[in-house]
């Protein structure tokens, strides 16, 4: 691991969709975002909700599971089956907690590469992901250029900005300020810092939206009442909405995991690993890229995407770049935005034709 120590053995929880074709050329690795998981396109086992990217992944979707073999694994440091701070440290028999070495984006990608080896896949047809998933996409091409045929980094950056780190730090401090956090050893005491984690999620959730979308959706509308109550109840709909986001989040996410995955993003600075020149991270790659940003995303604004595109151009890689017009903020990458879907579909189809992937993997297998 980048932090120094080795971590073994590790568990990686993953889901697959579709079928791997005979020449093993149709595999797409989907990398999930900060609090995502491996349940891209199936009902979530905890929440019962549809997969987090069911707009993008599924039969007939842009990432078409009738044509491609789709893999998504829970990142290490996560909390849905892969090794993370809630996993048991085999040496002590109790949960790792903060004794788990700090995980980086590169560590996550190393673990994914082991999974891809395990599945017997030499070259991935595509690595795709948004936000923290997009960072993993960039890291994949930097670490394993010959193993990635095409790459789809969405709403992401090659490094975390001061503002990004600042928001993450607010979230972490909210978790740590909860008395039930207990120095990260809450599991041993049979408690959970749900209040702190909920506040962290509420603050983070604002950054995933945009001012315009908040105004359009909530404005100053009141929640089930006709006048303010002159109290600190959730009078406004936006308050109620954020409280709901916070409280539902804690049911499916581990507080220490939140510390680890936010830290992984903060430490991400791909250029820094290559003498400060981002283009060098992509030297030797022939991967075809499609970079996507969204106009109202202020967490990873279009300027971040342009930085990536310039580096890819300087490295002479075939790159496409689209900025999608939307007021839905950073979360737009999870939504069914028609231009976004059309671009992704077109990019993957042309790449699939260049790679010689048959229209339907099943048809080719027969």
């Amino acid at each position, binding site marked *: 691991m980048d932090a120094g120590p080795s971590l073994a053995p590790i568990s990686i929880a993953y889901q697959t969709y579709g079928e791997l074709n005979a020449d093993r050329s149709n595999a797409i690795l989907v990398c999930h975002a900060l609090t995502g998981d491996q349940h891209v396109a199936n009902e979530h086992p905890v929440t019962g909700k549809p997969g987090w990217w069911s707009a993008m992944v599924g039969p007939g979707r842009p990432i078409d599971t009738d044509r491609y073999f789709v893999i998504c694994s829970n990142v290490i440091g996560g909390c849905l089956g892969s090794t993370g701070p809630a996993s048991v440290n085999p040496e002590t028999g109790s949960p790792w907690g903060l004794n788990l070495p700090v995980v980086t984006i590169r560590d996550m990608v190393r673990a994914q590469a082991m999974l891809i080896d395990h599945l017997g896949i030499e070259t991935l047809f595509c690595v795709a992901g948004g936000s923290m998933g997009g960072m993993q996409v960039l890291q994949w091409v930097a670490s394993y250029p010959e193993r990635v045929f095409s790459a789809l980094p969405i709403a992401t950056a090659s490094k975390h900005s001061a503002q990004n780190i600042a928001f993450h730090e607010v979230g972490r401090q909210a978790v740590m300020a909860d008395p039930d956090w207990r120095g990260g050893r809450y599991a041993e005491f049979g408690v959970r810092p749900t209040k702190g984690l909920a506040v962290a999620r509420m603050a983070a959730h604002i950054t995933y939206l945009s001012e315009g979308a908040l105004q359009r959706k909530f404005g100053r509308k009141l929640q089930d009442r006709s006048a303010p109550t002159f109290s600190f109840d959730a009078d406004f709909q936006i308050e109620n909405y954020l409280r709901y986001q916070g409280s539902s989040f804690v049911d499916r996410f581990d507080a220490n995991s939140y510390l680890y995955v936010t830290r992984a993003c903060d430490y991400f600075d791909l250029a820094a690993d290559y003498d400060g020149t981002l283009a060098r991270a992509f030297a030797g790659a022939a991967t075809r890229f499609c970079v996507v940003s969204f106009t109202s995303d202020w967490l990873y604004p279009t300027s971040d995407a342009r930085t990536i595109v310039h580096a890819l151009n300087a490295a002479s890689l075939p790159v496409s770049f*689209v900025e999608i017009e939307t007021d839905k903020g950073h979360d737009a990458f999870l939504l069914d935005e028609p231009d976004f879907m059309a671009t992704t579909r077109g990019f993957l189809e042309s790449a699939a034709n260049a790679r010689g992937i048959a229209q339907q993997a099943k048809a080719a297998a027969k």
Partner: protein
Amino acid sequence: MTSRISQATARVDLLLVADMVEPGARVLDVGCGDGALLEILTRDRKVDGRGIELSQAGVNGCVAKGLSVVQGDADTDLVDYPDDAFDYVILSQTLQATRRPRQVLERMLRIGRRAIVSFPNFGHWRIRSELMLKGRMPRTEALSYSWYDTPNIHLCTIRDFVQLVDELGASIDRAVALDRYGSEVRVDAPWWFWNMFGEQAVFLLHRKRG
């Protein structure tokens, strides 16, 4: 009828540009629109083609066709490309819509070994006569916008362009003028004749060494 003529003319223009590109070259098409030229170049000349396009609709169309196109602006984004990154940098019917055409041309000559520029000739006799006889801002089939809504903010004549090329210290490898029917104006004709009868022009340029 008018649109058919201008379409036919545009077609010839693209083929002319494509004809100037060596097979297998590395090409950047600045303002590539819906990717029509890049498609011709990729299919017929087997180039390694890239594009820059301002409109999202254009970029989406290109990406869907499998072309490598980035959303961007000729005026601001060429600066980011390294020297000699391409064998050819093409600016097809876009020069007159840039904010700083001289700078765009300079940058094209820096990042490409050769530059290909096509543009509508504002010196064409029909345009001259519109202004002279009617006293109105010229509107022709090739330049059909009104003065108040035109994207073409830096129109020039063939003579103007030749002078700019000279000022930039570039050399003209090849120049072709097309009349309003898309036929080439006589090659041996003098500049003034081209400037009068060419409705559009295509130039192949390279930067002088040293």
